[in-house]
């Protein structure tokens, strides 16, 4: 029966610091330096979970991140985190761990019934059944399948964990602090370059931590101390290099919650290797573990099997585990699948009382549910009672990071493993990760890799080669046995987490899914949280055998970041919640906040939507605010308008080119409404532009398109028309803007700015006048978006709030009040001005009723492609006004328009873009696009809104609902 005992001394645990934790609610104790897995094994919690599909009992198998079975849900309340990897989770006081995928407990799981019907659940069975009698039968089966799937469980609760992010730069990044990584970091550090050494374990040393060689341990401790003392070295324990992205950009998760974006001028991969399981029947029973896991438990965690261990191997490395276990008094038997075994090994084993059976495999694993005994196959078919069965199928270099840049790994026959295929310039590899097994060899290769990197960095003087610790590495010899099944009853697992067996691989081959990518997707091989770290090589080797081709020809699936599962929150960092995107505020934001404004989003801006003086809801408030402007005078914040300073001898010519109408001859002190097209002839943006001087214009854009227009104008000026002397500068944040509108607008302005000639001569409609008020430059533009007598008052943003308050105070006797975005939008609908809802990159000039603005004399951007056949078709949808004919009903944005006698079906003849209650006409009005546009003026049409089963009658009218002759503008 599988059980472990803690050695009284030795290992790297701190017996003076016990740590209390719970497992499935039960109290447990481990020591500082333990992992969750080692502490559970010490407490003899051998069965820790159930497998994904067949719900077979499972225990710890691996020594670290490659672990497929021992996954736990940690944390409590809403914030549990599923799928934590037991052997890689540093034990901490108060840790609450729960097993997964087993109910009520790992030892007794109701869903174990799955394994009874397991022949039905061969790979790909989903595709062959549940097609069901009806078309939508799958919708009946799916809920059952979804409930059975998924490993861990978590809740909808938000997290209160902070995720920090940071950027960093260095000359040399070394990935992994095993023998190769430590040596590389030391050599690089000694030459003075900046070095970052990242190691996923909470201790530095890699495989050395699981060894028992005194000379190597001395070298490790001495090297770590030297690195800790070095100024130019940054050590990152508990840090997983999750991915290498273009531009030598390494993404490193530090301590599980933080993320570092490191740009390294050179990278040395020293990530080590992972031991492979062997494929034989019932190789998944609790108590069947990797030999390296047993060695690590013994040497690092002072935990050994209580009495006897059997080790199955096809290579020499397993003997190191045998020697170390025997040294701690464990009775060890080695079943070696190979015929010839080196004499040195045989004699050393005999010297330590280790029984070695050559040419023998495992005929049967006797387990209830954990290992009780094993029956060998081959020449010595004996049955041996034992606590554990160690297995070693050889070692697979962790080539993942080297392949993230698209370089495929290649198969190295000598070590029967895939090694990095090639390296981008500035990338190097060392140690087991490059197929160099053996600690001393790894140290030498790490040292050499550092010198290569220093050469790449242009360092002339390279440090001398490091002296190696004395002693000999055990040579690595392997005779691959990819399929050690004996044909007996029982499942031989290839992917322990997704329950993929050797038979599944064979069936995939029979059905033609023999390309490695098909094999992976058809059987879900390697798609679990361990990402195939222990399964892919065995599966593709078995497939190569079935196809009769070399393993190199089968190749690997694509290695993709992250190297280990990484929380979405760690990547999102601090850009969540209200920090998801930056917020833009107008210079009047604080004033609005203090004066009863409700805000609304406009792109990244927050804009005053409506004010509580006018009403508690937007519907109620906007009508009151409209009445204020139509009958009296109101003040609105338009600071978010895009504003661009255009200066230069050729400023006029430049604007002539980008606008459809003429600007070169615009007199100084005058403004003009302009529309600009994209090269494809569709409308890009509109706005008014004023001439400030012979060589300076003040251009405005819509709030939404300001960024687009600025980049577009810079693109034309810098790349395509460098011959023009024109310079652009954004003024959007430099100038605040206010819109003063209403019959009493001039009166209000006169009260605020005494002595300024505001007459029609002094400041005509579309006139611009720069004045100074109390030492502050103020620009008056006689423009009107609302259709009333109106002025826009722009001034530098530092003074906008003071000027705004002055205007409100000075004009208070007239009853001036602020009005918001909702009423501003409604006022412009009454006046028939197009805005964001109409400009959606699909309209031509004529669609918006602006066709006559297009200059016939001078060329402009988009002038050719706007003549494309369909864009000049008479039946295009163009701008119309709509008046509701049925009192008591309402018009809705997004309604689809039909002629009176059309069948209400299909795509209709147009749609409503924007709607408002008209204060002037005392009925609902709207702007919309209609087939043939104002050719149908006066016609009655149907506005359909099937989503609310509504149809209302309306009449097509001119979009200029009020003051069509513009008398108010020129008042």
């Amino acid at each position, binding site marked *: 029966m599988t059980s472990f005992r803690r050695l009284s001394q030795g290992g790297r645990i701190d017996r003076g610091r016990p740590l209390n934790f719970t497992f499935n609610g039960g109290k447990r104790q481990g020591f500082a330096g333990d992992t969750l897995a080692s502490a559970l094994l010490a407490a003899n919690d051998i069965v820790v979970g159930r497998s994904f599909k067949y719900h077979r009992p499972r225990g710890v198998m691996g020594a670290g991140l490659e672990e497929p079975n021992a996954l736990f849900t940690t944390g409590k309340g809403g914030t549990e985190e599923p799928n934590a990897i037991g052997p890689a989770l540093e034990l901490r006081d108060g840790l609450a761990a729960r097993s997964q995928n087993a109910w009520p407990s790992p030892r007794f799981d109701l869903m174990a019934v799955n394994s009874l019907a397991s022949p039905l659940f061969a790979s790909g069975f989903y595709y062959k059944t549940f097609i069901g009698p009806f078309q939508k039968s799958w919708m009946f089966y799916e809920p059952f399948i979804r409930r059975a799937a998924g490993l861990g469980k978590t809740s909808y609760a938000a997290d209160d964990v902070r995720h920090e992010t940071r950027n960093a730069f260095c000359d040399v990044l070394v990935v992994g602090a095993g023998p190769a990584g430590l040596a590389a970091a030391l050599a690089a550090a000694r030459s003075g370059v900046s070095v970052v050494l990242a190691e996923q374990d909470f201790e530095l040393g890699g495989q050395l931590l699981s060894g028992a060689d005194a000379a190597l341990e001395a070298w490790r401790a001495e090297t770590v101390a030297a690195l800790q003392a070095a100024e130019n070295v940054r050590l990152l324990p508990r840090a997983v290099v999750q991915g290498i992205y273009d531009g030598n950009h390494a993404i490193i998760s530090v301590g599980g919650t933080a993320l570092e974006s490191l*740009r390294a001028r050179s990278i040395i991969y020293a990530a080590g290797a992972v031991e492979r399981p062997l494929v034989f029947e019932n190789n998944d029973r609790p108590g069947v573990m990797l030999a390296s896991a047993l060695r690590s438990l013994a040497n690092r965690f002072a935990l050994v099997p209580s009495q006897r261990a059997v080790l199955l191997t096809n290579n020499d490395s397993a003997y190191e585990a045998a020697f170390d276990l025997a040294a701690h008094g464990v009775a060890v038997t080695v079943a070696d699948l190979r015929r010839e075994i080196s004499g040195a090994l045989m004699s050393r084993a005999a010297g330590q009382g280790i029984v070695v059976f050559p040419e023998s495999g495992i005929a049967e694993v006797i387990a209830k549910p954990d290992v009780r005994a094993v029956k060998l196959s081959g020449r010595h078919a004996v049955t041996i009672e034992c606590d554990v069965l160690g297995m070693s199928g050889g070692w697979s270099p962790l080539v993942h990071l080297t392949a993230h840049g698209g370089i495929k790994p290649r198969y190295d026959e000598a070590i029967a493993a895939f090694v990095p295929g090639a390296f981008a310039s500035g990338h190097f590899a060392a140690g087991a990760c490059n197929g160099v097994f053996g600690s001393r060899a790894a140290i030498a290769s790490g040292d050499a890799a550092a010198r290569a990197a220093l050469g790449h960095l242009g360092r002339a003087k390279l440090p001398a080669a490091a002296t190696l610790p004395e002693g000999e590495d055990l040579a690595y010899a392997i005779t691959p046995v990819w399929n050690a099944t004996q044909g007996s009853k029982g499942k031989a697992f290839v992917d322990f987490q997704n329950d993929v067996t050797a038979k599944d691989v064979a069936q995939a081959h029979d059905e033609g899914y023999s390309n490695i990518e098909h094999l992976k997707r058809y059987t879900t091989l390697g798609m679990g949280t361990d990402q195939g770290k222990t399964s892919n090589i065995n599966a593709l080797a078995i497939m190569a055998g079935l196809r009769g081709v070399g393993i190199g020809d089968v190749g690997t699936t694509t290695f993709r970041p992250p190297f280990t599962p990484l929380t979405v929150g760690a990547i999102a960092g601090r850009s969540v919640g209200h920090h998801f995107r930056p917020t833009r505020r107008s210079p009047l934001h604080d004033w609005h906040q203090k004066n009863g404004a409700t805000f609304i989003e406009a792109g990244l801006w927050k804009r005053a939507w409506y004010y509580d003086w006018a009403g508690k809801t937007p519907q109620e408030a906007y009508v009151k605010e409209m009445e204020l402007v139509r009958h009296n005078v109101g003040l609105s914040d338009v600071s978010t308008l895009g504003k661009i300073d255009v200066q230069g001898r050729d400023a006029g010519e430049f604007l002539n*080119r980008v606008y459809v109408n003429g600007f070169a001859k615009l007199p100084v002190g005058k403004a003009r409404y302009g529309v600009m097209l994209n090269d494809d002839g569709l409308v890009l943006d509109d706005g008014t532009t004023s001439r400030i001087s012979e060589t300076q214009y003040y251009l405005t854009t819509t709030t939404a398109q300001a960024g687009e227009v600025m*980049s577009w104008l810079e*693109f034309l000026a810098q*790349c395509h*028309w460098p011959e023009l002397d024109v310079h652009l500068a954004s003024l959007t944040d430099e100038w605040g803007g206010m819109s003063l509108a209403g019959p009493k607008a001039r009166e209000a302005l006169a009260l605020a700015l005494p002595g300024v000639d505001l007459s029609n001569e002094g400041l005509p409609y579309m006139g611009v006048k720069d004045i100074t008020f109390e030492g502050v430059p103020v620009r008056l533009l006689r423009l009107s978006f609302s259709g009333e007598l109106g002025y826009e008052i722009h001034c530098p943003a530092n003074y906008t709030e003071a000027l705004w308050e002055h205007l409100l105070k000075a004009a208070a006797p007239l009853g001036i009040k602020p009005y918001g975005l909702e009423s501003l939008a409604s006022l412009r609908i009454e006046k028939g001005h197009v805005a964001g809802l109409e400009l959606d990159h699909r309209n031509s000039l004529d669609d918006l009723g602006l066709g006559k603005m297009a200059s016939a004399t001078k060329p402009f951007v988009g002038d*050719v492609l706007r003549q494309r056949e369909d864009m000049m078709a008479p039946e295009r949808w163009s701008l119309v006004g709509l008046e509701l004919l049925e009192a008591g009903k309402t018009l809705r944005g997004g309604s689809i328009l039909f002629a009176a006698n059309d069948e209400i079906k299909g795509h209709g003849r147009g749609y409503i873009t924007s709607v408002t209650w008209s204060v002037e006409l005392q009925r609902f009005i709207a702007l919309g696009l209609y087939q043939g546009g104002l050719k149908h003026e006066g016609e009655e049409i149907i506005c359909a809104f099937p989503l609310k089963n509504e149809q209302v009658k309306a009449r097509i009218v001119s979009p200029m609902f009020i003051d069509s002759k513009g008398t108010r503008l020129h008042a």
Partner: protein
Amino acid sequence: MRIPCPHCGERDVNEFRYGGDATKQRPAHGDKDFQTWNAYVFEFDNPKGPHEEFWQHTLGCRQWFRLKRNTATNQILGGGQ
């Protein structure tokens, strides 16, 4: 991917805006030929290999510049001419 801004030096790609194929010569302002504009606006080589393109350093000097990059590997081949 790090983009070499000619003025501010190497920066992460998200400090830039992409401007598309830079090999196509923009028709002269005032060119009235429909096919010329149709090809310029709607037809692309879109090669799988070296590609000359426009980038703008929007979060820095706001300059547009040309860059040669291999679209099969994302390797930066150098500033355009």
